[in-house]
């Protein structure tokens, strides 16, 4: 196995709260459409 020669990247490339963010964006988009 290849040995890492640097510190590991410990932050996930995908944000931990992405599903909540997507849900809020979707809710906002629906309410904007209804207002229009």
């Amino acid at each position, binding site marked *: *196995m290849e040995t890492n020669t*640097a510190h*590991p990247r410990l932050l996930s490339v995908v944000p931990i709260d992405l599903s909540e963010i997507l849900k809020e964006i979707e809710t906002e988009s629906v309410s904007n459409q209804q207002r229009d």
Partner: protein
Amino acid sequence: MITFVGAGIESLNQMTLEALQQLQSSDRVLALEWDAEFFVQNSIKNVVDLRPLYRDGDKDEDNYKRIEDSILASANIGENVSILIPGHPRLGVTLVNRMQKLYPTKAISGISSFCTMIDDLAIDPLEKGTVILDANRLLLFEMELSNQMNHFIYHVCSIGAARTHYSSPQRGNLIDTLQEHLSKAFPKDHSIALVSSKTNYSTSNSIIWFQLCDLSKQLKSVTFDTTLFIPGIRPKRINKKFLDQLEA
């Protein structure tokens, strides 16, 4: 209790006395930073090397899940377990955020790469104001940048990369997309730098200066320890009334 302990960046000698005492009093230390001699000299016992669980080419989720399972295996049998993390455990460590939702968790500060980089660059981050960002979140949320402030852009090693390619950070790296985004806020000839502080794995720090328009060409120099530094541009306007107040 699960305790995340900051190890510092350059070597374990950078850890605080509080961190050292925490490791010495732990039933088990799970380590993502390793120095066997330091552990022996400082009477730190029952140290387990977690580094093999972080595998080249795997998805983040798989790597972090293996590490998380190992932590929970110790915590669930009632051990006072510490996890030794490079840098500061609250700066860019998803594991800490995940674990604190599952288990009583605390963090002991360590010298972060932000600290070591401002030393390397010899800057005071408050002079211009400084933003620290993750490259993937910057692009995902199409964040707007204010060019008067310094920016430290972390994780240029993994732009748009679904897998952890630490042996070849160039693989699938969408650095062109970052260059394009930065060019909306900064002039193309603006001087920027790839910065890597000295670590256990290197013999010295590294600062490579070049123009923003050449960012993609510099991808060859990127490692998992590299952060992109963009100095802020000198302000073009001033609030004279407020200046009078400051100088009164």
